[in-house]
């Protein structure tokens, strides 16, 4: 039984297709993050799960039951909004118990839930205040509290942290993580912030143009992006994608960057499909953090490149190198001194590379 299953779901607003044949499944207790740039359809998808938007095609199942036409309140879900969406005319307590009251829960049960949740979230002091009298973080807590008291099957979060300042955001992120660890409720969480996605999600579904690009655990998303979009979207700075060609020569495969006079051997790469690799136009992807300034493993590939630019960011520095007129970014500890406009020896960790078909953009 899947807690949430989405089947061939399509949605369009007028002539614009927002979601195209989405398929998605979540197991009990998972934390799924919908990640993508703004306008990719992630919020629409969340609203559809909540029942706030209608569906053009396809179905949504909760606990194996088709809820596609069921009212939001009957879907056993709770949602936390970006703007918190607290009812301004009600105080904190009224805000939190509103849903229970609507469901005609007994008074004792309401009291019990309220006490439990408010002490858990440390908002018991605020119960009689109006939302306008609360700070951003407090509002966020109340909004989460309002969702919690209902004990839903699925929690839906719609960019809940983006209205907070940077410091508070990190704090609240940790709290949400703790909350999930403790309650083990299924969560669907929408964000455009990859750090949030990586740190919170047990699964991340990356979306672009209404299509799920990849739906995997954070590790796989990071290490084995399924296409150039995901590769580019995850990681900061993002993965270097170097244009070039593959050469297959008696079982030995190597990559030649466009205009470069050296080959990079591809040894331990796990190809999805090994047919016709010779002369294939590809992107060679390597993350900046997988380029070293000294040899770490036997298989590391050594190359001399000219350093063009250095960006100091505290504990690290980001160096830009020239690889046959393509930019290559590398991330080093800031203690390393590298002279600009000079050739420097670098080592590529070839166990961590990705290759993408330059036409389909898909991982090879």
């Amino acid at each position: 039984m899947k807690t949430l299953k989405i089947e061939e779901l399509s949605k369009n607003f007028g002539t614009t297709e927002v979601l195209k044949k989405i398929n998605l499944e979540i197991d009990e207790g998972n934390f799924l993050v919908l990640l993508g740039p703004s306008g990719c359809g992630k919020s629409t998808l969340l609203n559809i799960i909540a029942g706030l938007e209608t569906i053009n095609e396809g179905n949504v199942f909760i606990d194996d039951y088709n809820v596609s036409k069921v009212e939001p309140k009957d879907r056993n879900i709770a949602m936390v909004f970006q703007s918190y969406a607290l009812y301004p005319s009600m105080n904190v307590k009224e805000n939190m118990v509103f849903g229970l009251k609507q469901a005609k829960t007994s008074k004792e049960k309401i009291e019990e839930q309220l006490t439990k949740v408010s002490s858990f979230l440390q908002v018991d002091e605020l119960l009689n205040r109006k939302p306008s009298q609360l700070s951003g973080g407090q509002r966020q807590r109340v909004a989460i509290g309002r969702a919690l008291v209902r004990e839903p099957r699925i929690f839906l979060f719609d960019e809940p942290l983006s209205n907070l300042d940077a410091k508070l955001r990190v704090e609240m992120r940790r709290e949400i993580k703790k909350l999930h660890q403790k309650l083990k409720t299924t969560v669907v969480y929408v964000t455009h912030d990859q750090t949030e996605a990586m740190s919170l999600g047990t699964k991340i579904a990356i979306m672009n143009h209404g299509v799920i690009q990849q739906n995997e655990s954070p590790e796989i998303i990071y290490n084995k992006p399924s296409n150039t979009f995901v590769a580019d979207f995850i990681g900061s700075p993002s993965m270097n994608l170097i244009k070039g060609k593959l050469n297959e020569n008696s079982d030995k495969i190597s990559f030649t960057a466009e205009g470069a006079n050296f080959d990079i051997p591809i040894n331990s790469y796990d190809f999805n499909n090994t047919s016709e690799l010779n002369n294939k136009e590809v992107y060679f992807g390597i993350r900046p953090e997988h380029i070293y300034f000294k040899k770490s493993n036997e298989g590391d590939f050594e190359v001399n490149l000219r350093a063009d630019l250095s960006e100091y960011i505290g504990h690290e520095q980001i160096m830009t190198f020239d690889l046959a007129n393509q930019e290559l970014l590398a991330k080093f500890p800031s203690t390393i001194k590298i002279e600009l406009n000079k050739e420097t020896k670098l080592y590529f960790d070839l166990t961590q590379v990705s290759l993408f078909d330059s036409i389909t953009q898909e991982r090879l």
Partner: protein
Amino acid sequence: MFKWLEKNLPKIVLAPAVGLISWFVYGFVLWTLYISFTNSKILPKYELWGVGQYVKLWASRKWLISVDNLLVFTALFLIFCIVIGIILAIFLDQKIRAEGVLRTIYLYPMALSFIVTGTAWKWILNPSLGIQKMFIDWGFENFTFNWLVDREMAIYTIVIAGVWQSAGFVMALFLAGLRSVEDEIVKAAKIDGAGLFTVYWKILIPMMRPVFFTSFVILVHISIKSYDLIVALTQGGPGISTTMPALFMTQAAFHKSQVGLSAASAMMMFMAVAAVIIPYLYSELRRENAS
């Protein structure tokens, strides 16, 4: 000199408005106050006479009737305008087809003066020409709708026509208010299991407090000032059953050679307006200073 000018420019720019209002509003109110203490008859006189006009005013049957009418009218006018305005605003807010057309229909009476529409209303409400005749012609022989000429009911025809003219404006105010509420609040309420009715009744309408206030003030001031409406429909009749203070005041000043009495009645109206408006303005000021 230039520096001074620059520093005081905002106040200088404000001066015409303040000057005009001081003279044309406050100056005139003071003038009226003065005249109310004179025995002015056909034209204003400046010889002080005392509070006789006020005594006379409150001894006048017609004035008492007009105050009574004002209370009844204001209460009904307010209730109906706000209730209808809210209902229409809420209904129009439901992603309605042809919203633009409907909205225009609800709003257009605002555009027309009662000099214009009074003609039509008088006709429609007149039992021997309008709705009653229409129903009788259709075969409902016993249909009666003669409120316009029934001295007990005539005041309600003024309410009907007044609501007709102003409810659309209230609708516009509420619609604008509802449209400025964040979507997410409604979504949150839906997830919380609130039906459409509850969403509006428990969440959105309580959020419309400022709109209620604005509508209340505008409507009260319309009802206290209402004059055209009555002149066009009943001219205060049948008899004197639909007289209202504005009509009383106008008749006293211009028709009955009682300029002093008229000034006294005008002062009573100012006081009524002030009693309603000043608390509002005061609370407005406090709210703003607080934020």
